[in-house]
């Protein structure tokens, strides 16, 4: 494999007494979609800001696209911050041209791209309108364009799906997939696990400033999923939770996810359930990222 797009080694960032990022190491391979997971306040945003040279680490080394932290080439990175923001008074077209220009795109080219993107997003007729006259959904689209207009090689998105309506969430998902298909790298932080499941190849779980878990999604799931059972049923299934084979469980209401003890046979669980509840579905399953997330974070 080629050199990773991002390599973070033993990075520490403190705010006064508080250690926001505590010896974090991670590597994002080229061309992958990489999910940075963790609860609020885990240190995701701080880590991301350091990737963009907005903040400098107190300790450790960071390499992004082959450059050390001091020389990170921000022009090759597209960044969508967690809290969205645009100049409210600026006209849509002017704003996009400005954001492209400060990423090193020449004015004429920036204009051409702004028009092309606005056309693609169905916003061409708004180009001369000030941002504040656009609906929130439209502003989000403009923000996506601003993130991508300089055709970066690396996308860094901080909680990209939060606050999006389903339509825009889909638009963004398509953008990410399209970007990925062209061989580029995407890193995004989130606590929306279904997005992770659908999009990510690699994940890294951060909690309280430390990396708790990382690897390919498949590997992580394998590590956790070697003995899980998902049961959907009608009737009172509370007894399933206290079967001797069950190590832990996640109650989803209509569905129960049971983690079995090492060596326990899923068939024994099926036998126990049969006859006492009406089984709608029984599946030997790997746990969802959500389950892993909850389990690891509540453990810590």
């Amino acid at each position: 494999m080629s050199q990773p797009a991002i390599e973070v080694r033993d990075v520490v960032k403190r705010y006064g007494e508080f250690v926001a990022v505590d010896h974090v190491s991670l590597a994002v391979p080229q061309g992958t979609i990489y999910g940075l997971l963790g609860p609020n306040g885990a240190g995701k945003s701080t880590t991301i800001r350091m990737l963009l040279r907005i903040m400098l680490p107190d300790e450790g080394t960071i390499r992004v696209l082959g450059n050390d932290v001091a020389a990170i080439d921000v022009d090759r990175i597209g960044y969508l911050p967690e809290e969205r923001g645009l100049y409210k008074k600026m006209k849509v077209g002017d704003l996009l041209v400005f954001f492209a220009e400060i990423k090193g795109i020449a004015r004429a080219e920036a204009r051409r791209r702004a028009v092309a993107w606005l056309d693609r997003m169905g916003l061409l007729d708004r180009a001369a309108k000030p941002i504040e006259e656009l609906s929130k959904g439209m502003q989000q689209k403009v923000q996506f364009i601003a993130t991508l207009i300089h055709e970066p090689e690396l996308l860094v998105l901080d909680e990209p799906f939060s606050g999006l309506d389903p339509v825009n969430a889909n638009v963004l998902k398509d953008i990410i997939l399209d970007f990925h298909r062209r061989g580029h790298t995407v890193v995004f932080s989130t606590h929306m696990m279904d997005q992770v499941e659908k999009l990510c190849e690699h994940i890294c779980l951060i909690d309280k400033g430390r990396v708790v878990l990382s690897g390919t999604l498949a590997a992580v799931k394998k590590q956790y999923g070697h003995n899980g059972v998902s049961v959907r049923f009608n009737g009172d299934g509370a007894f399933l939770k206290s079967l001797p084979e069950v190590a832990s469980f996640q109650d989803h209401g209509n569905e129960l996810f049971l983690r079995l003890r090492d060596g326990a046979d899923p068939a024994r669980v099926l036998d126990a359930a049969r006859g006492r509840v009406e089984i709608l579905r029984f599946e030997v399953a790997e746990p969802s990222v959500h389950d892993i997330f909850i389990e690891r974070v509540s453990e810590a």
Partner: protein
Amino acid sequence: MKVMHVIRREYVENVRRKSFMISTLLVPLVMAAFFVLPVVFALFVPDRQYRVVVVDQVGGVGAEVAAALVDTLKSGETKYAVQSIEAPGERFDAEREARIAAVQDGEVDIVVAIPEAVLTDGKAEYVTREARNFNIFERFTDVVSDAVIARRLSAEGFDFARVQALTEPVDMEMSRVSATGEVEEKNFLAEYGLVFIFVMILYMATLSWGITISRSIVEEKGSRVIEVLLSSLTPRDLMMGKLVGVGLAGMTQLSIWALVGLAMSGYAATSAVAMLSSLEIPPAVFGYLMLYFLLGFLLYSALFMTVGAACSTEQDAQQFQGLITLPMIVPLMTLMLLIQNPASTFAVVLSMIPLFAPMMMLARIILLEPPMWQIVLSVALLLTAIYLSIVFAARVFRVGILIYGKRPNLRELIHWYKLAK
């Protein structure tokens, strides 16, 4: 050079604002009003004939008043059509009332009633429908006074014309010697007015553009644009771009004002109206206005930017802005003292202190020609102060710009300054 794009954006967005256009137009209009209105008033004072009746109880005074009122209209006609009625003794009251009734009816414009007692108590009456025309009222006051004084003097055996000639007051002419030795006549009152106008313009421009820059940073922090910016630019690019872009916008506005001012000053110089010709302003003064605006703007804006970077909300920023405004008020408060003695040690020292220098030095330049070394020294000190304040601002900027939440106190500001090494 990414800083160029920031400069361009700041400049264009500021110059496009409605408030920019309004204030850019409004200030010259106010200045123009100051220059032009006196002329306009002089031109448009209603020029017509007044029907005047003088009711004279003394006898002879009315005739003298009529004889003295030889004013003519532009058309060459006499301005006052005076009818003098001698109404001695008891006839006076009836005559007076009848004539006042005529004023009321619009048949007569002005009635002057001069009772006999005027010779001792000095009281006469002026009745008109429109009491606003003070020029005409004063003209009548003069003419009636002269007639009454002449009567009193002759009763004592003096000749009025002779007394008038002997008591003619002295006409003092003011002038000052400039550095080049030429003696120029100056209307000192007009000159003080100019100093005030220039200092106020400098004050307002520095303050409003400084607040503009502070507000724009608070806005960028508030709308979180700042993160997108910082993922593309260094804080240094952002800060310098703002300083230069907003500064250029301010300079644009000021040069428009200066050009209008120059044009008006040229117009005033050629004007026949004496009051205006004394308002001629040496072109160099406009140059100094621009220079000291630029320096003052850079110095204060660096401080205003620090405030913007340090605060998260407009309200927080306003309190700090007030603190920065304080040193600007000192020149305004000491301006009267400085005008009275612009060459005193006090004035020289004030015009050297960078925070006061722009306004104080400009005032001194208008009032007298300070030695060149003083101007050069004040500029050099200002440049040093600008350099230091930008270095300080840059450090606080770098740390403060991403910190949201509570307003920092001075100790934290200093801590940030130390952090950003």
